[in-house]
């Protein structure tokens, strides 16, 4: 049937609808650049969603655990062999995503007799200064969204990942107003938690165009904190050690959360 072009387009559209449906309940991840590094933040109850990829690169993902695992392994393999054969400074997130992951995900998505990757990923690479931080979101079809400045919009010091487009958009709207790159760690944790709560609330509704009011956000976040564990990690900006990734324990963060 794929000999007929419009059938192929139809098959791709069906496949997109199916994958979007599968990814829709995925719990959001908020990633914020702050003065001393990059914070990855999410709440969850079951699976690990944040991973170390290389010295300065980390990843958060939602989707099927098997697919996430294959992509995570591939990313680590590519970064590690590059870092070994050249140097850690030559491992670049931009190349990893643009030249290696994205083409593979695109071709898996479009070859409709093979399985696509049921995964959506968010990568961050910490720079020497906040202006050098790079955030890349990679979709199941290989599409890449970056935080970099284009003529259409200003550079962002954060990135988010969520189950639905609407949830992503409103999380970004919130962070655009509430987050600055020179904020403290504590401020970043609270902004990330609020952004997560907004993203999580919006997974339940279908046509919200505006941010929920602050009282509703506060209530939702209180409810979720009572039942779910915080999963968080940082990429530290401090250059004294090569490995910048550090995962944070739930109780390390609870004391920083303001009511």
């Amino acid at each position, binding site marked *: 049937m794929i000999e007929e072009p419009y059938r192929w387009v139809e098959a791709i559209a069906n496949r997109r609808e199916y994958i979007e449906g599968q990814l829709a309940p995925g719990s959001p991840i908020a990633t914020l650049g702050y003065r001393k590094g990059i914070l990855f933040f999410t709440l969850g109850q079951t699976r690990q969603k944040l991973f170390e990829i290389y010295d300065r690169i980390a990843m958060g993902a939602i989707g099927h655990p098997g697919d996430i695992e*294959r992509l995570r392994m591939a990313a*680590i393999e590519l970064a590690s*062999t590059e*870092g*070994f054969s050249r140097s850690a400074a030559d491992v670049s997130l931009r190349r990893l995503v643009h030249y290696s992951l994205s083409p593979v995900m695109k071709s898996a998505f479009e070859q409709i007799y093979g399985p696509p990757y049921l995964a959506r990923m968010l990568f961050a690479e910490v720079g020497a200064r906040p202006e050098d931080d790079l955030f890349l979101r990679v979709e199941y079809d290989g599409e890449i969204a970056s935080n970099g400045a284009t003529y259409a919009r200003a550079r962002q010091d954060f990135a988010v990942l969520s189950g639905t487009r609407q949830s992503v958009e409103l999380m970004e709207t919130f962070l655009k107003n509430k987050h600055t790159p020179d904020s403290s760690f504590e401020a970043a944790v609270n902004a990330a938690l609020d952004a997560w709560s907004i993203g999580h609330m919006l997974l339940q509704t279908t046509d919200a165009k505006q941010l929920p009011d602050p009282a509703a956000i506060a209530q939702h976040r209180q409810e979720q904190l009572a039942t779910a564990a915080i999963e968080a990690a940082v990429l530290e900006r401090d250059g004294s050690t090569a490995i910048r990734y550090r995962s944070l324990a739930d109780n390390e963060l609870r004391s920083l959360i303001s009511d």
Partner: protein
Amino acid sequence: MDRSQFGFDQNFSGAADDFPSLLRRKGLLGPAVTGPMPQNQIQQQMWQPTEATTILAFKFSGGVLVAGDRRATAGNTVVYDRADKVLEIDKHSIMAIAGVPATAWEMARVLEHSLQYFRRTQLQEMSVDGKVRALSKLLRDNFGFVMQGVGVVVPIFATYNGNSKPEVRLYFYDAMGAQFEATDYAATGSGSPAVRGILYYENNWGRKPLHELNEEEAVSIALRALDTAAESDTATAGVDRSGKIYPVIKIVSREGITTLPENKIAAVFKEMVA
């Protein structure tokens, strides 16, 4: 295994693969030569171990002290007088090397990356036994070169075991990859016979056994031992009094690895050794 044109295998599962075999798959590391190579051209008497250096390690009250002199030689020529033979492999492990630098440094690099690769892919630290075994495997893979008289490496490995029974662990190896756990001290390299003599003497008849020494006493014994080795071994530099070049000394403990600053070593040297 079918390789994708995009640089990674879509059906890849990394669970069974260790980092050296991944590097081999990508052509970034030479093949493992586990058996002796054909010896037609190379006569047996041409083979001589060239581990021209001295490294030592012993347990003291503050952990394991690992020290190495800084001379690199090629035959009778001194090539470099600031070589660093005491290498940090991860936050709690040190590999000190005696042997051919090209092979030894490459081996340390492979080991360092292997441990990181394991931690990142498997989401847990490699166990101490796993690390010790990983180094043993690298030595074994290098055995063909050893038999050809090039590339012999004889390392010491010191690490802190943070598991059920926290303690510092110390291992030494032979060129074929056999590992031996040292109870008190280890030394390898061309100057090691003298060092072993000193450490044995100190441990049995010194003022205190090695494991009771404080940091300053431990450093002074390490400096004295290296200086003694340098007295008769041309491949060992000991302490260069005129050039003010001191051995590299690192300590592994529960807190991680401490590199002793040169002025601290110089102060101990001035007071206790010179």
